[in-house]
């Protein structure tokens, strides 16, 4: 019985404490980042999409070997002056796990991860990317959807 | 107390057990497992916690690995049971350790080891009508594409 009255008196006080917490938050300004109008810069180490400097690539295939999901494939051919030359460098984005191992392992830093993070498409074919194409990410690097 | 000490104590009671060279695990014959578990749980050693059960497919045999833990003595013991792959059956430890229930079901699901006297030996991770035991080395499935 004593407990009953105790709770009757002190219960509301503790309830009000909770209300005070929410009220304090009600009057503090919102912390929301209003995405399409405000955008935050990606961090220095941000792992976006895989990108390539074709000139730097020495075709060592280390990235292909270390990729846990086998999303990279490169072929090379013999160029006119008997030098190895990149023929194709395919990147299957839908398999990629953005772990960054390929970029870390690349000896010449030819392969790197860019800062693009707004990626969406209604066509799955667009997710198979030819890394040798310079305009491959044009649609996502400067998104136009509002 | 080290793993070797545990082995010596078990050896005193059950002379049939042996020690694996590489890992120093205690190898228990499959018919002795409940008795050893009972002894491990008892007053002398007080391994009150069955931490984990797993299995390894060694092609010709399946190794069951039991990891016991004693909170009282702060001490871990690894016990192994070798089972022939085509007749993998062993007594369940659910009457000593409740945690064995799900661990054993998992091993049954993935390796096909039958635990006798288990209250509910059904597949746990895969659907009930699943065919085959996925973690065996010779398992095949059309859905399973090998990484080139």
């Amino acid at each position, binding site marked *: 019985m004593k407990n*009953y009255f105790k709770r*009757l008196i002190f219960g509301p006080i503790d*309830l009000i404490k*909770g*209300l005070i*917490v*929410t*009220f304090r*938050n*009600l009057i*503090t*300004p*919102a*912390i*929301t980042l*209003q995405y399409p109008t405000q955008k935050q810069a990606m961090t220095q180490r941000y792992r976006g999409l895989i990108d390539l400097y074709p000139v730097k690539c020495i075709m060592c295939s280390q990235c292909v070997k270390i990729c846990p999901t086998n999303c990279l494939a490169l072929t090379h051919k013999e160029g006119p002056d008997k030098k190895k030359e990149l023929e194709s460098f395919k990147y299957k984005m839908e398999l990629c796990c953005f772990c960054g191992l390929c970029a870390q392992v690349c000896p010449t830093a030819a392969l790197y991860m860019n800062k693009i993070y707004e990626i969406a498409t209604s066509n799955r074919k667009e997710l198979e990317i030819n890394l040798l194409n310079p305009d491959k990410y044009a649609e996502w690097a400067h998104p136009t959807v509002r | 107390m080290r793993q070797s000490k545990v082995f010596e104590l078990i050896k005193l009671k059950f002379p049939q057990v042996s020690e694996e060279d590489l890992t120093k695990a205690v190898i228990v014959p499959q018919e002795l497992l409940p008795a050893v578990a009972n002894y491990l749980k008892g007053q002398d050693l007080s391994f009150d916690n069955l931490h984990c059960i797993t299995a390894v497919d060694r092609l010709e045999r399946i190794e069951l690995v039991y990891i016991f833990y004693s909170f009282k003595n702060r001490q871990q013991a690894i016990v192994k049971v070798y089972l022939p792959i085509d007749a993998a059956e062993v007594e369940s430890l659910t009457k000593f350790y409740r945690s064995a229930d799900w661990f054993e079901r998992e091993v049954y699901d993935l390796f096909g080891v039958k635990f006798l006297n288990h209250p509910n030996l059904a597949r746990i991770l895969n659907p009930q009508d699943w065919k085959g035991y996925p973690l065996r080395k010779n398992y095949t499935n059309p859905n399973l594409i090998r990484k080139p």
Partner: protein
Amino acid sequence: MVTLSSLIVMVLVVSAVLGFISASAMFLIWWERKVSAHIQTRFGPMRVGWHGVLQPIADAIKLLCKEDIVPVGVDKWVWWLAPFFVTVPAVMAFVAIPFGKNLIVQDLNLGILYIIAITSTGIFGIFMAGWGSNNKYSLLGGMRSAAQIISYEIPLLISIITVLLFSGSLSMQKIVTAQAKYWFILNPSLFVAFFVYIISATAEVNRAPFDLPEAESELVAGFHTEYSGMKFAMFFIAEYTNMFTISAIAATLFLGGWRGPLLPGPVWFLIKTYTIIFVLMWVRWTFPRVRVDQLMGFAWKVLTPISLVNLIIAGWFILK
């Protein structure tokens, strides 16, 4: 006799009330989303209209043109009628709510009794929805709701009786007139009654922390789990209309209704009502939900005794 002119007046009044109800429900939905968002230090709807004011309209239109699914195995009649049984009482209660000195549809001399009687029939709709859906979550929700409303009706009524002791009339306008000298809430006995009323009324309209019938984390969506499209929207509108009704009653019974200095009556009335609604929202977004047995225990062990003792004390005061 119904003459043409009185018919026109009736139609006008009805459309005004219905218009007000839908506008108010829309506003409340928007406001609730805004209040909850700001409590959670975010913005809430922002991109549909200025600060998302058009958001409820978009939601309503979208719900209108959604497919109306009738699940297999529902009790057809019960299932179809349930949303109406929920919405119609909610609307009917507006007949006796005094918005201003002369701004009342019909000043019934049994006003408060009428409102209480009408609003508590809304439970039929909820229970029908729970029963007719042929879904176990809905059934559990409906059962909870029935038990809940029956228990909370008692402290609710007792607390209202306490008010009636002081006002001496059941008519809503007369209750407001009785508060000419001071608001009833300033009377210590009625102060207690006010809190008992607010708590039981919150339970009555299934608002958090008493939102057991639709308890999202337990019962998915409770009694309206199987409803889609417009029928779901009707439950939604009924919920917000009910919330307006109970707050309006609270404002009328305890806070002096439309009385207030300077500003015109209806404005005062709406200010008071929306303040109470704001408090209800604030509470909703703060507290965890109570469990069903605790809910019952709270009604019978705490609220009913308190309101009874309060009633006796109030009666003693008046007789003295």
